[in-house]
């Protein structure tokens, strides 16, 4: 059974007045997320990522198509006990302390009081907010709100975790911690469905991704397949001790070169001309520092797909 199943989902907003056109924010979107998978949902702002997530939770209703979450139709209240959700830029109850906030979210998830009491301290520790347990949320920074938001997502130990831009508002350290948290959730057998536009995060942790633009699915699959499929590879060569005219023979082979002092960086269009470039380098008496093959990145795929789509 899939954790998430979306088939031909379309969402259209009716106009307020008859003479205005209807606006379609999702058009024939289909995807599935297997249990235990980390799925990255990519797209520019306004692509329809948040709308899709809201439909999964029943906050919005699709105009047509089939949407199932954990085997039940989207919006089924009973299923919500098995789902954790973090919206984008969460804003919570100002006057509750972090501890009270988690207790409240635990209680509306149907957890008994003693279970909540046991879960709150380790959860606060997991998101790095142990010290802030008795502080009211109105005194929290944006990053701390994001962390407490993540904690409320996990208080009831859900099977499926839906995160809308979980890294936004976090510093590099915070982003790393969220990445580690998502990976640890996969290790526990959880399914994570998250949206982002920070592609490096996705490349590092996702099993599969879906790219959404203007309400349509552009690409869906494993990162290696998507990145490898669309982008030519290149090789980056760094060498020392070659300057001026000595390097001209190699420069002809490179797509671009960058000389800084004694050191030179060259980007070759592929492996084919690598041997020739290295031979020319040896002949010029240069010293090889590094060779880094560059696979097509998800970012390049994303930009290429978005441009193709217009």
């Amino acid at each position: 059974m899939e954790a998430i199943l979306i088939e031909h989902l379309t969402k259209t907003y009716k106009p307020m007045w008859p003479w205005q056109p209807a606006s379609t924010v999702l058009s024939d979107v289909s995807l599935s997320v297997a249990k235990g998978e980390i799925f990255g949902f990519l797209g520019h702002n306004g692509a329809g990522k948040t709308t899709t997530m809201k439909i999964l939770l029943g906050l919005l209703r699709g105009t047509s198509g089939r949407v199932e979450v954990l085997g039940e139709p989207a919006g089924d209240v009973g299923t919500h006990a098995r789902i954790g959700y973090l919206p984008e830029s969460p804003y919570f109850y100002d006057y509750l302390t972090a501890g009270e906030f988690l207790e409240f979210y635990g209680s509306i998830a149907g957890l008994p009081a003693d279970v909540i009491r046991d879960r709150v301290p380790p959860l606060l520790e997991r998101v790095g907010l142990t010290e802030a347990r008795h502080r009211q949320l109105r005194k929290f920074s944006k990053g701390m709100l994001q962390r407490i938001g993540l904690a409320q997502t996990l208080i009831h130990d859900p099977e499926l975790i839906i995160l809308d831009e979980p890294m936004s508002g976090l510093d590099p350290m915070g982003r790393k911690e969220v990445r580690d948290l998502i990976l640890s959730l996969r290790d526990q057998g959880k399914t994570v469905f998250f949206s982002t536009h920070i592609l490096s995060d996705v490349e590092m942790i996702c099993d599969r991704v879906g790219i959404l633009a203007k309400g349509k699915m552009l690409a869906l699959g494993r990162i290696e397949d998507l990145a490898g499929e669309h982008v030519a590879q290149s090789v980056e060569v760094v060498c020392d001790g070659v300057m001026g005219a000595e390097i001209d023979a190699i420069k002809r082979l490179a797509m671009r070169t960058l000389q800084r002092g004694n050191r030179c960086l060259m980007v070759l269009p592929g492996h084919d001309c690598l041997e020739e470039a290295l031979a020319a380098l040896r002949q010029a008496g240069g010293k090889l520092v590094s060779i880094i093959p560059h696979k097509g990145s998800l970012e390049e795929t994303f930009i290429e797909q978005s441009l193709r789509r217009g």
Partner: protein
Amino acid sequence: MHCLIAVAANTFRETLRDKILYNLVFFALLLIAASVLLGTLTIGEQARIVNDLGLAAINLVAIIIAIFVGIGLVSKEIERRTIYTILARPITRGQFVLGKYLGLALIVIVNVGIMFAIFLATVWLSGHTVHGSLFQAVELIVIEALLVMGLALFFSTFSSSVLSATMAIGFYIIGHLTGDLKAIAEKNSSQGMKAVMTAFYYVCPNLETLNIKGQAAAGIPVDIGFQAMATAYGLMYAGLLLVGACLIFQRREF
């Protein structure tokens, strides 16, 4: 039921920590204290002035809480997007709306209780008689606040905060003038106008039914049968508004 109580308890706690509530109660206490000073300036009617002003202060603050905190109950959750994480839990929309209402109802009851206790102490310390009718009046003040809270909550399920406040205040004012609406309908020669005024008369809550402050301030007890009917009327009206609010909220998209 568990979820409903959790939402009610959270609403109670959140609202209780909002400083605006303390300001309102402080304002009421100032008015009660002022009633004693004003009472000393009058001859013979001192007890009535203290009772009148005290009950009016309690009523005013209860209605302000009911309208202005009431409209924020749901609309604030939507504007601040806290509703997303709440409705992503195993809680129905009806449970959420009722939980919010119950939480604020408890706030109103506790606040009116505190103000009334201080008011009674003021009456007693001023050497006046504490009439039973004062208890009857304050009970109907609470019922009126619960009804007005229902109005505020109902409007806030489908309109913005400003519009909800405007409509709730409008209905509150019309609610105290329904007798006049009926009189206008009867005297008007235009059939259309008559129909509109009659419709208004039946749709708007008759809040004057719940207003026995004048009689209570004079120490005249109200018939228990009337008291019970007025209470039932107010609660039934609030119940209908809550059902309407739940039905609208059920269909709403976020």
